[in-house]
C-alpha cells in the first residue's frame, strides 16, 4: 500500500455537529441528518451554499426501511444540486465517511465538504431491530442456520477471553468506564454510574455477553465539515488535520479466521500510521476513540491498533491507563456503550470527539493530558472491516 510520500495536499476538519442519540427519535432520517449538518456548518462558520460536495454514510438500508437510502436522505444531508456520494462499509461506515471525504478534498475536486452520517434504527423491525441482522449472512451456507449477530460476537468474545486469559470482570471495566464518561456528554443515551457487579448481574443474552456488555439501539446523526488547507487557514486558527487514513476488509468467510486478533484492523492501522508518519503508536497517540459496540471490542481494537500489547489491553484498563486522566485516554466521549450506537453516526461521533478533544473544546470530557494526536476507529460487516483516521492539531 502507498503512503503519504505522494500526498501533496492536507485536509482539515473545521466543524462538527451531533444530534441527540436516542431510541425512538421523532425526527425523520432527513431531519436528523440536517440537524447534525447545520450544527457542523455553524461551528465551521459556513453556510450550505459554501459547500462544494457532500459525502455521507449510513449502515443497512433495512434500518430506515428505505431502498436507495442515500438518495432518500440526500435532501437532509444538504446534497440538493451538489455532488453527493454515499459510502458504505457496514459498521465501519462512520469512520469511513471522513476517509472518503479526505480524497474528495485531497484530489482537488472539492474544497469544502460536508460529511454526514445518519442512522434511524429503532423503527426497523418487530420485535427488535436485531431482526435486520438475520439478513446479513451468506444466503446458502449461513442463513439456513439463522444466526444472530450477538451469537457471533459472543463467539469472538469467548475466543478472545480464552486466548488472552481475560476475565469477564476485566471486560466489564470497559463498560463501567465508558458509561461513566458519557455522564459528561450532553448527547448521550446510555450514560450511567454502574459497577462491575451490575454488568455481571445484568441479563445474560448469549454467554459470555450480558446486557450491559452491549451498546443500545439508537437513532441519531453526526456531521463534520472538512476543507482544503487554504480554506482551513482562512476559516480558523485551530484546524484539526486528518493526517492518516487506513481501512481494510477481510474475507467474507469469517468462520475460517482466528477471531482473537483483528488482523484487518492491524493492516488498516499500519496504513494510517505510515501515512501520518507514526512509528510508535503507543507513544505518539494521545487520545483514542476505538469502536466499542461491545465492551470487549475496545480491548480487542486497542490491541489491533497497536495501542496495547497483544492480550495487554485488559491490564491497561485495570490500571486506569485508559481513563480520561490516564496516559492513553480511551473513549472519553463515553463511546457507543455510553453515548449510543446509531451505527454510521456513532463512528462519525468518535471522529467528532477527537476533533473537539484536540481543539480543547470537549468541556467536562476534556482529557487531562495535552492531546496533539488522536485516533478514531470503527469496525463492521462480518467482523471484517477496520477503518482508521488519525488527526493532529
Amino acid at each position, binding site marked *: 500500500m502507498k503512503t503519504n510520500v505522494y500526498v501533496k495536499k492536507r485536509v482539515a476538519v473545521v466543524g462538527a455537529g451531533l444530534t441527540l442519540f436516542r431510541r425512538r427519535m421523532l425526527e425523520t432520517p432527513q431531519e436528523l441528518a440536517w440537524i447534525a449538518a447545520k450544527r457542523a456548518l455553524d461551528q465551521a462558520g459556513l453556510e450550505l451554499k459554501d459547500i462544494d460536495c457532500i459525502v455521507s454514510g449510513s449502515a443497512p438500508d433495512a434500518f430506515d426501511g428505505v431502498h436507495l437510502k442515500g438518495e432518500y436522505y440526500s*435532501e437532509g444531508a444538504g446534497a440538493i444540486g451538489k455532488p453527493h456520494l454515499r459510502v458504505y462499509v457496514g459498521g465501519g461506515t462512520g469512520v469511513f465517511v471522513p476517509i472518503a471525504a479526505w480524497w474528495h478534498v485531497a484530489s482537488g475536486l472539492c474544497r469544502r465538504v460536508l460529511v454526514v452520517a445518519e442512522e434511524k434504527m429503532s423503527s426497523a423491525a418487530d420485535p427488535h431491530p436485531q431482526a435486520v441482522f438475520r439478513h446479513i449472512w451468506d444466503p446458502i451456507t449461513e442463513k439456513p442456520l439463522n444466526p444472530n449477530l450477538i451469537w457471533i460476537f459472543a463467539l469472538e468474545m469467548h475466543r478472545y477471553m480464552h486466548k488472552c486469559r481475560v476475565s469477564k470482570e476485566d471486560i466489564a471495566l470497559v463498560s463501567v468506564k465508558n458509561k461513566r464518561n458519557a455522564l459528561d456528554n450532553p448527547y448521550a443515551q446510555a450514560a450511567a454510574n454502574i459497577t462491575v457487579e451490575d454488568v455481571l448481574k445484568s441479563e445474560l443474552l448469549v454467554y459470555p455477553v450480558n446486557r450491559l456488555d452491549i451498546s443500545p439501539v439508537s437513532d441519531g446523526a453526526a456531521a463534520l465539515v472538512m476543507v482544503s488547507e487554504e480554506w482551513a487557514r482562512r476559516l480558523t486558527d485551530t484546524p484539526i488535520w486528518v493526517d492518516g487514513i487506513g481501512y481494510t476488509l477481510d474475507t467474507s468467510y469469517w468462520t475460517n479466521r482466528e477471531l482473537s486478533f483483528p488482523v484487518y484492523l492491524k493492516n488498516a492501522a499500519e496504513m494510517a500510521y505510515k501515512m501520518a508518519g507514526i512509528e510508535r503508536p503507543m507513544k505518539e497517540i494521545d487520545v483514542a476513540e476505538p469502536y466499542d459496540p461491545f465492551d470487549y471490542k475496545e480491548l480487542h481494537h486497542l490491541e489491533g491498533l497497536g495501542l496495547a500489547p497483544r492480550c495487554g489491553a485488559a491490564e491497561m484498563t485495570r490500571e486506569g491507563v485508559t481513563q480520561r486522566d490516564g496516559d492513553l485516554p480511551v473513549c472519553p466521549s463515553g463511546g457507543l456503550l455510553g453515548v449510543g450506537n446509531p451505527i454510521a453516526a456513532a463512528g462519525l461521533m468518535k471522529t467528532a470527539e477527537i476533533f473537539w478533544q484536540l481543539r480543547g473544546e470537549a468541556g467536562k470530557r476534556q482529557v487531562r493530558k495535552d492531546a496533539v494526536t488522536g485516533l478514531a476507529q470503527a469496525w463492521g460487516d462480518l467482523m471484517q472491516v477496520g477503518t482508521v483516521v488519525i488527526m493532529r492539531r
Partner: protein
Amino acid sequence: MSKIALVGMGYTGFTRSSEHLSFREMVYQAAVKAYNDAGGIDPRRDVDAFISCQEDFWEGVSIADEFAPDQLGGVLKPVYTVTGDGLHCVANAYMMIRSGVADIVVVESHGKPSEIISMSDIVWFSTDPIYVRPLKIPNPHALQALEARVYMRSRGLRREDLGLYVVQSLGNALLSDRAPYAAKLDLDGYLEAEYVVDPLTAYDIAGYSDAAIVAVVASEEIARKLTDQPLWIDGVGWATEISTISMRSMEEDIATKLAARMAYDQANIKDPGREFDFAEVDERYSYKAIQAIEALGLARMDTIASDLRGGSFSRSGSLPVNPSGGALGEGVPLEAHGLARLLSAYEQLRGRAGRAQLSGAEKAVVHGWRGLGTSSSIVLVLSR
C-alpha cells in the same frame, strides 16, 4: 497534474438470467478478464484499493459490502462499497489516484435482477415512506411517465419521436454481443405497441439483464507501463437533484446538467455539441435518453426535436448516441449499468467494438443515472 487512465475492463453476462452462476462467480470471471486486459496485473500484489458499487436491497442481503472482497482478490486490502452506480465508483477511483493515495484502483459492479422476485416492491421501498409510498400506485413506471409527458410537451416531442429513438437504439444493439433485447423494429411496429403507462410502451422501458463488470483505473505513470492504449479520464462530475416527485423539475434533467458542468470544467470542454465523437447515455427510458442528450449540452432545447428527426444522433449522424445500443437493447444490470456504458465507450475508443465500430472516434462523453425515482446523475469525459 498527471492524468488518470482506464487501463482494463472485463465483463460477464448481459443475459436475461444466469442461474448457473452466483454473483460472486460472475464478478470473479469479470475480474480475471479485466486484470488480463490491464496487462496481466496481480490483484494481490499490484492493486492499491478495490471499490464495489452495489445496493443492499438489490442484493437481497443486508450489508452486502461483506461479500465484496474475495472474488476480486481484495482480502485484507483496502476494499469498500459505494451505494451508487458503477460510475460513482470510477469517480472515487479517480479521486483516490489524483490525491496520491493509490496508483491502481479496481472498480466492480454487478446486478442479478433475474433473482429478484418482487422488483416493483423493492422499487416502492425507494420512495418516501410518508408522502409517496402510501399512494400505492400499481405501476412504479408511472412516476417516470409523468415526467415523460411534461418533458415531451415542453420540447414539442411526439410519440413518433420516442419511436424514432427506440427503433434506432434497438437497431444499433443488433451490432452488439451484449444485447438480449436487440430488435429489428420499425416505426409502425413501435406505434402498434400498447401503453404500459401513457406515453410509454414496453419498447420505451428498458428490461433487466444480469451482468458483472470490472474496470481497472490507474495513474498515468502506471498506465503507460501497463498498456499502449490507455484511455484518459479527462473529467468526472456527479450531482443529485431533489428526488421528491412533487418537487423536482420534470422539464429538464438538472442533475445531469450539473454533473456535466463539473466534468466539462475538469476536461476543459467548451462546446460539448462539437467536441465529442459519440456519447453513451443512460436510456432506461427512451425519453430519458433524449432528456440526457439535451442536459449534456449535446443539443439545444429548442432544436432537440428537429435534431432527432434529422438523424443527428444515429450512427451516421453528427453525434452518434449509444452506437452499439444502450439500456433498451442490453437490459439494465442494476448498478452496473453505468459501467456498461463505460464498457461500450472503452471498446469504441480502443477500436474493439467489432461490427459496431465507428471510425476515428477519439473523445466521448459517458452518462449514468440512478434509475426510477432518483435524480442522481454522473458524467465522465473519456479520450484516447
